[in-house]
């Protein structure tokens, strides 16, 4: 039985590696997901085989009751969630799932310690008033496999990383779902408080690893970890969410890894590390796309301050933006040879993707070349715009990256910006005082004509004024993005 379990675990690990490799290529991604799901099945079956094998004759099927209940409830929640979630709600769903991964690792760490305590009190039942601390080390060593102090340290790591991932993800979820303001919350001494919390948690961990007899400190780590997760994410603005979600994704893998150390499972360690690495890669891609360091995203409270005073133009100078009605815009669009659409979070909020798709079909029927320029950090999670446009059946060939369109921007007749702001802000190229200076953008300001679809004249999430709005070749079309696009569609149809 033991050998069978090991073989299943090996198959599972291979399936995860192959699955992830396939998942990173468009042609094979779906197959990769299926391969990795099979790997998960092998791991679960392998665990059951292992449980039965370890107990031999004394095994009873009833002892698996609670596992069955847990699996059943998990499936009952997971299936409808996956089936019915709207594509526009994917960021908050991913955030929530990250959180579940975190809390699972936290609970594993806690359960592992609880099990050791139970076993110790069972062993000590016959010995009156025995020395307790040293015993717990031995028990931890036996249940976790390896040095007892090391197992103790990894239990705290699983609880700490898991707890931070959990509460951080819940805050990210609440921000993305609009349950709380997505504005960063910053206060004086914030970094000091966060650093203090982290130090306290680490101190508890060191104490417990040093002498596991001090186990009550672990109960202290749970609330500290939760507080730390809240404190870390609350200070990050909505526009930086793609980085935060990727990072929390990575943490959920590392938390699983720590749990793997604590329970002595090689498969858990390997698989958790794979997830941790993939989250780190996404985090890096997002940071590069914003030309900011991870530390800057995490600790700067970006977007909380007053709007940058040094945006181009004299302070207090009144500037007027051109404003067009959809009907007026239609006449320009109708004559356009080449159109680029730059979608942003506003398109997701307005659920405008289907209307946009219809507009592009009408444009194409009119002989216009249409492309979508997708900035990597547009939206609230990595790949957010791609998912929305795929849902609306926009052909993949129409989606291009900023680098593909920027060199030939002068030949574009009309650039339509739908609910995007900072990713088209030319201040990122010219204004060294701008907080987003240096961020690669879609350079629509060099197109012959720009239409900016926007709810109002307010600034973007970062509170940064956008000089694009005041350029001569830009026209604002104010209003709900979906209604505006529908008005354009109607104008085309009426013609």
């Amino acid at each position, binding site marked *: 039985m033991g050998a069978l379990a090991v073989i299943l675990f090996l198959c599972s690990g291979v399936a995860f590696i192959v699955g992830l490799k396939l998942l990173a290529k468009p042609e094979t991604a779906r197959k990769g997901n299926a391969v990795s799901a099979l790997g998960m099945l092998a791991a679960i079956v392998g665990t059951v085989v292992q449980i039965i094998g370890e107990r031999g004759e004394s095994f009873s099927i009833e002892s698996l009751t609670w596992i069955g209940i847990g699996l059943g409830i998990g499936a009952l929640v997971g299936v409808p969630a996956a089936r019915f979630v709207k594509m526009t709600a994917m960021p908050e769903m991913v955030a929530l799932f990250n959180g579940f991964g975190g809390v699972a690792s936290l609970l594993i760490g806690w359960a592992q310690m609880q099990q050791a305590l139970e076993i110790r009190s069972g062993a000590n039942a016959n010995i009156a008033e025995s020395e307790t601390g040293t015993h717990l080390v031995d028990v931890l060593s036996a249940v976790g496999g390896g040095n007892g102090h090391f197992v103790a340290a990894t239990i705290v790591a699983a609880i700490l990383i898991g707890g931070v991932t959990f509460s951080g993800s819940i805050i990210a979820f609440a921000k993305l779902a609009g349950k709380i303001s997505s504005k960063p919350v910053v206060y004086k001494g914030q970094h000091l408080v966060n650093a203090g919390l982290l130090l306290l948690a680490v101190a508890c961990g060191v104490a417990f690893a040093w002498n596991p007899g001090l186990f009550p400190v672990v109960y202290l780590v749970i609330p500290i970890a939760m507080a730390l997760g809240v404190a870390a994410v609350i200070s990050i603005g909505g526009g930086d969410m793609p980085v935060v979600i990727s990072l929390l994704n990575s943490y959920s893998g590392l938390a699983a890894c720590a749990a793997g150390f604590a329970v002595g*499972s090689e498969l858990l360690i390997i698989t958790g590390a794979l997830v941790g690495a993939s989250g780190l890669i996404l985090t890096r891609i997002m940071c590069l796309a914003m030309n900011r360091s991870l530390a800057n995203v995490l600790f700067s409270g970006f977007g909380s301050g007053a709007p940058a005073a040094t945006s181009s133009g004299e302070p207090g100078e009144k500037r007027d933006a051109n404003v067009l009605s959809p009907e007026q815009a239609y006449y320009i669009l109708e004559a356009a040879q080449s159109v680029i659409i730059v979608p942003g979070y506003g398109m997701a909020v307005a659920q405008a993707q289907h209307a946009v798709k219809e507009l592009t079909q009408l444009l194409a029927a009119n002989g216009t070349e249409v492309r979508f320029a997708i900035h990597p950090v547009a939206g609230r999670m990595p790949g957010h715009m791609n998912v929305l446009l795929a849902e609306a059946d926009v052909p993949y060939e129409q989606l291009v990256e900023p680098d593909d369109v920027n060199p030939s921007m002068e030949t574009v007749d009309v650039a339509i910006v739908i609910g995007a702001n900072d990713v088209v802000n030319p201040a990122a190229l010219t204004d060294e005082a701008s907080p987003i200076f240096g961020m690669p953008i879609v350079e629509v300001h060099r197109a012959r004509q720009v239409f900016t679809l926007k709810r109002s004249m307010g600034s973007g999430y970062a509170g940064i004024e956008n000089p694009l709005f005041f350029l001569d070749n830009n026209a604002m079309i104010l209003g709900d993005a979906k209604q505006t696009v529908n008005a354009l569609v109607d104008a085309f149809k009426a013609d």
Partner: protein
Amino acid sequence: MSLALTYAFIFILAMFLGLELIRRVPAQLHTPLMSGSNAISGISIIGAMSLAVVGDGGMLTTILASAAVGFAAVNVVGGYLVTDRMLAMFQAGKKRDAKKGGA
């Protein structure tokens, strides 16, 4: 101590493997990769299961661990299904385009 070192050894190698596996991932796949790897992080379910067996470590251990089983199961089931749903959308778009091109 040697077992701890072995685990650390495995961990570091696996991190490098992961970084190599998905070094270049196109923007289109960022979200599916995230939700897919999310499902994979549900692997903690196996650690939770082995702790949730009744009779090993008392009732509180079983309850804590089976709650972990539940959370991880949501991750696994929901994560794989939603990733598949997304990827099916991408594929549906591709197939139709291919048909259009052929016609």
